[in-house]
């Protein structure tokens, strides 16, 4: 008897919960486990205060896994996610396929014209936006001013690769656990290939010639890749072939790297005194170039929030997306964690804000490098594609990752540079033939 009463009460409780749940819309947000997104999850109180009828479920994943999950879902129209965190690589491709909701009627207080033009155009297809930028970045050199001083090197504002190498050699002190330079080595088109492609750009190399033949056998690629290996084997940390952005960030914060060339967004984290042991001693310089090549890598990336067509709660999803990328959110982060932590690289107004410029010494350089990036012409040579540190074709994910595997193997010492480049050339040719680019 007692049992049945309890069961009855349980049933009542369940149905009560069910009715309560009906009144609110739940949206599932897939996101990458980068610092800014984790920070966003701690700001949710503000969102709930504005939208008490919306409940947000987070699915936080590592970058490679996130890509696989959201691509699979959006391409099969699976409908598991209502908001997806995607890069400026995916947005135009998916937008053109009709997989994303166009974001045309944005509220006035969203101030859509405040978005940086380069980012806005990267996220638009035929003039309509298909995702809203959460933060944007280019790439630059971050280095330890204290170590540089100790080693007696001074890095110019626009260093060449030769100067980088010299500085790396001088700053390296392996006995003390300090490595002159930290660069990405973890395979993945968005990991090591993002960096190596940008480095190749700055050597005058390109991914494909005008008839879509890969160019890994060209002299600039050879030079760029060999210098990369040379830098990393002599002055890099052990285990570099499994270091991506996050791993390097953590190494730099622990004070193990002399220099780190990576996304500008990292600056906000390496200067965070709570997380970083070197916050006081970080200097910045433009992404290096090879002597005589007028190209600073052309890195342009943004993480954006897009709404897949398959969502069953488009209004709630849009409310969330505009909240997370709107001017109000920037204010909120600034109030709670200081201006230095505000999501960078998406809005003009941020770079006109005197407080931000004063608190974030990396701000001006970030803006300049982002403005200077030219995705339409990533290399000094002519190219058949659009893209910066990636190539904007659907096949690139697969190709970039497979090439990244080869390069990472060379970095790990499993093969030499020539073999890796030869393999890269061969497998890219194979895939491009299979996909029908090379006739």
């Amino acid at each position: 008897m007692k049992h049945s009463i309890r069961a009855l009460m349980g049933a009542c409780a369940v149905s009560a919960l069910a009715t309560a749940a009906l009144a609110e819309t739940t949206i599932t947000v897939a996101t990458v486990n980068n610092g800014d997104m984790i920070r966003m999850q701690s700001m949710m109180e503000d969102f709930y205060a504005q939208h008490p009828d919306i409940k947000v479920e987070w699915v936080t994943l590592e970058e490679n896994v996130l890509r696989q999950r959201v691509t699979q879902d959006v391409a099969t129209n699976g409908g598991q996610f209502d908001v997806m965190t995607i890069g400026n690589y995916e947005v135009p491709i998916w937008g053109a396929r009709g997989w994303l909701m166009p974001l045309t009627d944005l509220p006035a207080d969203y101030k859509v014209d405040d978005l940086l033009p380069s980012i806005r155009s990267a996220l638009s297809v035929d003039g309509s936006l298909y995702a809203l930028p959460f933060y944007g970045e280019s790439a630059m050199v971050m280095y330890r001013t204290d170590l540089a001083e100790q080693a007696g090197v001074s890095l110019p504002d626009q260093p060449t690769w030769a100067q980088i190498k010299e500085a790396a050699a001088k700053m390296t002190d392996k006995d003390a656990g300090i490595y002159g330079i930290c660069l990405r080595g973890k395979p993945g088109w968005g990991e090591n290939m993002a960096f190596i492609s940008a480095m190749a750009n700055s050597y005058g190399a390109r991914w494909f010639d005008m008839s879509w033949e890969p160019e890994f056998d060209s002299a600039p690629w050879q030079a760029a890749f060999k210098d990369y290996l040379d830098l990393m084997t002599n002055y890099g940390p052990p285990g570099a072939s499994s270091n991506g952005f996050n791993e390097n960030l953590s190494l730099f914060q622990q004070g193990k790297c002399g220099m780190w060339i990576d996304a500008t967004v990292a600056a906000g984290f390496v200067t965070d005194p709570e997380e970083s042991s070197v916050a006081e001693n970080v200097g910045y310089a433009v992404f290096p170039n090879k002597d005589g090549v007028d190209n600073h890598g052309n890195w342009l990336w943004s993480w954006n929030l897009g709404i897949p067509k398959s969502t069953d709660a488009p209004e709630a999803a849009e409310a969330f997306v505009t909240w997370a990328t709107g001017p109000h959110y920037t204010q909120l982060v600034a109030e709670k964690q200081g201006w230095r932590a505000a999501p960078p690289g998406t809005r003009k107004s941020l770079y006109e804000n005197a407080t931000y410029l004063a608190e974030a010494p990396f701000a001006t350089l970030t803006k300049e490098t982002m403005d200077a990036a030219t995705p339409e012409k990533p290399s000094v040579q002519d190219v058949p594609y659009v893209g910066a540190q990636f190539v904007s074709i659907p096949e690139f994910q697969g190709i970039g990752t497979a090439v990244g595997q080869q390069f990472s193997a060379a970095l790990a010492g499993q093969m030499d540079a020539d073999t890796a480049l030869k393999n890269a050339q061969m497998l890219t040719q194979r895939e491009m033939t299979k996909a029908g680019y090379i006739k």
Partner: protein
Amino acid sequence: MARAATTQRKAIVTVAAWIVGIAIFFPILWIVILSFKSEGDAIRTPLEVLRAQWTLESYTTVQERSNYLRHFWNSVVLSVGSTLIGLIIAVPAAWAMAFVPGKRTKDVLMWMLSTKMLPPVGVLVPIYLIFRDLGLLDSRVGLVIVLTLINLPIIIWMLYTYFREIPGEILEAARMDGATLRDEILYVLTPMAVPGIASTLLLNIILAWNEAFWTLNLTAAKAAPLTAFIASYSSPEGLFYAKLSAASTMAIAPILIMGWFSQKQLVRGLTFGAVK
């Protein structure tokens, strides 16, 4: 001259066994220790780690960031649910195979096991499409079905090996006394088979709890079990050892504790017919 071990010999064996045992257990012990340290301390050298202040801050952070209880509850529902359904299907099948073996019984059994060798990645896209059409994506029902099916061969195999050890004469006798099939199963077989069923149950709960391919790929938020919870701590943002350790401890603790408490039952049954 019997094998009554001398004290000296026992002492040596004790030392050796403890060293090996601690070595095997050490990784688990280490993450438990790290989970109670601060992020900054967790990456120091081992001696410094041990000397550092104990703290609960990683647990608080993990709890703030993820809904541990829901993931935990999903894991419980998925592993227990799929195991129970699996047992309901497997008990009759294993019973029939063990007591009414035909010419093909062995082949059928082997074929069942061989379905477990299919690489799941090879069929993920088809399953994903089917699940989408049936509306089973990110639902516990869908995952229970999948987990039941992938563990069914193991359940049948284990039960089959236990049932075979039950002497057939007992059943004969029961049948003579006019017992129906139902009676046979309920009153004769079941009591004898309970230890075997118990250990099958335990092993399959463990297998289902730890299954990380289907549970990760077919869920998003609502049905995501602890494997998905762990996946969100898998790559660092800044320092992450302590948070990862705390999340790992929370993910494995329930099953570890269950395993330890029931280890007698589990071990007794964990022979797969290896012992005759």
